[in-house]
C-alpha cells in the first residue's frame, strides 16, 4: 500500500516537473524571446535622462585644507574643467538589457552614478527613475567589518524591504550565493568571488527593479555561478527586471544585450544592436589585427 502511493506521487511529481520544464513555460518563454525587441518597445520607460551634463573641476593641487585655502588667495591655482558627461539623452524601458561599452575614462561609471543619484548632474539635467535601483561593482556595497548576515539585512532594508520580508528570503539569498558556512563571517575575510556572489544574490532576491552592473563580472565567479547568473539574465526580461551592464566582456554583451551604447569622451557616439555597435568600437580602438576582445581583458 505504502509502496504504491509513493510510486504514484513520485510519478505525478515527475510528470508535473516535466510539464513545467518542457511544455507550458518554454513555449511562452520562446515566444517572448523571439519578440523581445518588439515587446520592449511597448513597455514603460523606467529610466529617463534628459540633457545630462557633468563637469568636474579638477585642481592640480589639493585645496581642501584651511592652510591651502589661505595660501591659495595669493597663488593662483589652476582649475581644469573636465567634461565627464556631455549632453546625454537616454530612455531605458522595462526589461531591457542595456550594455554600455567604451574606453577607460569615457564616463560609463559616472553615468551609472548619475542614474543612482549619487552624483547630481549640472543644471538643466533631469533624471527620472522608476523602481528600486541597486548598483553593483566589485568591492563595494558592503561594509568589510560587518558579517554577511548584517550586510544582507542592511542592503535589503535600504532597498526598501521590511525585516519580515528579508527574514523570509534570507535562506534563498544564502543558497544562491552558496555561502552557507560563512553567514556570520565578516565580509573582509571574503574573496572577491564570494563578495560579488553575495551582492548579486541580494539584488536578485531583494527584487531590485534596476540592476546597474559596473564591470561586475570582471573575471570572477566560477562556472556554476556563471550558469546561475546567465539564468537570471535570461529571465530578467520576462520578470521585468532592467539591467544596465557596463563591461569589457563582450561575450555577455553579445549574448544578452538587446541594445548597446558606445560612449567616448562623455557622449554617446553609437547606439544599436550588439552586432552593429561592437564593430564601431573595434574601429575606435584602431585595432589592426582581428583581436578577440574578450581575451584582451583576461
Amino acid at each position, binding site marked *: 500500500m505504502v509502496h504504491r502511493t509513493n510510486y504514484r506521487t513520485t510519478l505525478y511529481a515527475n510528470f508535473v516537473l516535466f510539464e513545467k520544464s518542457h511544455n507550458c513555460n518554454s513555449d511562452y518563454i520562446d515566444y517572448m524571446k523571439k519578440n523581445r525587441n518588439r515587446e520592449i518597445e511597448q513597455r514603460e520607460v523606467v529610466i529617463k535622462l534628459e540633457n545630462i551634463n557633468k563637469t*568636474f573641476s579638477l585642481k592640480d593641487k589639493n585645496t*581642501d*585644507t*584651511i*592652510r591651502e*585655502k589661505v595660501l591659495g588667495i595669493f597663488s593662483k591655482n589652476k582649475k581644469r574643467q573636465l567634461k565627464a558627461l556631455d549632453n546625454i539623452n537616454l530612455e531605458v524601458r522595462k526589461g531591457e538589457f542595456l550594455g554600455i561599452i567604451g574606453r577607460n575614462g569615457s564616463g560609463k561609471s559616472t553615468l551609472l*552614478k548619475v542614474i*543612482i*543619484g*549619487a*552624483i*547630481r548632474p549640472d543644471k538643466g*539635467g*533631469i*533624471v*527620472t*527613475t*522608476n*523602481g*528600486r*535601483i*541597486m*548598483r*553593483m*561593482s566589485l568591492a*563595494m*556595497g*558592503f*561594509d568589510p*567589518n*560587518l558579517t554577511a548576515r*548584517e550586510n544582507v*539585512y*542592511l*542592503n535589503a*532594508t*535600504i*532597498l*526598501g*524591504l*521590511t*525585516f519580515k520580508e528579508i527574514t523570509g528570503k534570507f535562506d534563498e539569498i544564502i543558497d544562491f550565493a552558496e555561502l552557507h558556512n560563512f553567514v556570520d563571517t565578516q565580509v573582509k575575510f571574503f574573496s572577491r568571488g564570494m563578495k560579488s556572489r553575495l551582492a548579486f544574490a541580494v539584488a536578485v532576491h531583494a527584487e531590485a*527593479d534596476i540592476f546597474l552592473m559596473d564591470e561586475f563580472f570582471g573575471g570572477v565567479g566560477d562556472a556554476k555561478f556563471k550558469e546561475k547568473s546567465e539564468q537570471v539574465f535570461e529571465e530578467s526580461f520576462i520578470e521585468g527586471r532592467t539591467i544596465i551592464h557596463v563591461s569589457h566582456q563582450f561575450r555577455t554583451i553579445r549574448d544578452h544585450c538587446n541594445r548597446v551604447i558606445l560612449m567616448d569622451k562623455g557622449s554617446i557616439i553609437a547606439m544599436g544592436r550588439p552586432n552593429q555597435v561592437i564593430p564601431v568600437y573595434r574601429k575606435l580602438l584602431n585595432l589592426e589585427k582581428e583581436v578577440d576582445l574578450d581575451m584582451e581583458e583576461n
Partner: protein
Amino acid sequence: MVLTLIPNELSSSKHCYQKINIKKAALSRGSFFYVSIKKKYSFFLNIEYRTRNIDIQKVTLLPVLTQLRDNNRLERIWLLAKIDFKKRYYDNSLGIFWALINPLCRFVVYYFAFTYIFPQRIPNYALYLFSGLIIWFFFAQGTKKGIKLLKTKKYLIESIQFKHSDLFIASTISACYSFMFNFIAYFIVSLIYGVGVHPTILWLFVLFFTIVVLVLGISMLLATINIYLRDIEHLWDIVVLAGFWATPIIYPHEITMVKLPFLQYLNPVAGIIINIRETVLNGNAPYYHLLVYDLVYAGILFLIAKFVYNKFAHKAVEKL
C-alpha cells in the same frame, strides 16, 4: 506635468484628491519634489514621495501610522543605528560593556582629581559630576561621529538609492544608545547615594530632545563642511576640548551663570546640563529662560544645517 494624488486607505476624506501642477524640473530629484508640495499643504498633510511609483503619490493624514505600516524607513533607521552601535565594539572581547566602562573610568578619574586634589564644595559632587559628564560625552561622541559619516557610508550612497539624511538620524540614535547605558549607570550610582527620583525628571524628555536636535544639526553641518574643508575634524576636536572647560561640568554652574553669562548663551549644552541637574538631581523646576533659549538655538541651528546640507551635500560622492 500633472500629478494626481491618490489618498491612502487610512484617510478617505474628500480634500485628499488634489491635482497639483509641478514644474518638470522639480521631478529630477525626490527631495525637491517633496519640498515643493510640502510647502503648500504642510500643516495638514504629509505627502510621501516614492520613486517606485512616479504617478501615484500617497497623501495621508496620519503620517506616523502609515510610516509604520507600509514604509520601512523606521526599520531602516533602527537597523543602521543598531549596526553602527555594534560595530564600534565588534572586535573587542568585552564588547558592549565598553560603552559602560569608558564613562565610568572617566568619572572615576575626574572624581578623584576634583575631590582630593582640587576639592569642590558642591553637595552630591559625584552625581553632579557624573550627570554633566554623560551629557557632554553624548554631545561630543554624536558630533564627532557625524563629521565623517558621509565618507564612512559612501559605499551605501554609491550603491543604493535612499534618503541620505537617514544616516544622520541613525548615527544620533546610536549615540543615544550609549547615553542610555550611561544613564542607567548614573541611576545606579544615584540610588547608592540615596538620591530619590523626583517627579521633575519628566523635564528630561524635553531637555534630551533639545540636545538630540542640537547634535543632529551640528553633525549635518559639520559633515557638509567636511566635504570642502577636511580640517574641520581636527578643529572640532579643539572646540570640543574648549567646550568641555567652558561648560559647568566639573565646577559649580554659578560661575557661568553669574560671572561669565556669555558662555552659556554661546554654548547651549551648558544650559541643558544646568537644567538637567536642576530637574533630575535637585528636583527643582528648570530655568525657563535657558530652556526656551536652548530649544530655539537648537531649532534654528537645525534648520540652517538642513538648508546647507540640502544645498551642498550632493557633492559628497565626487569630492570625498
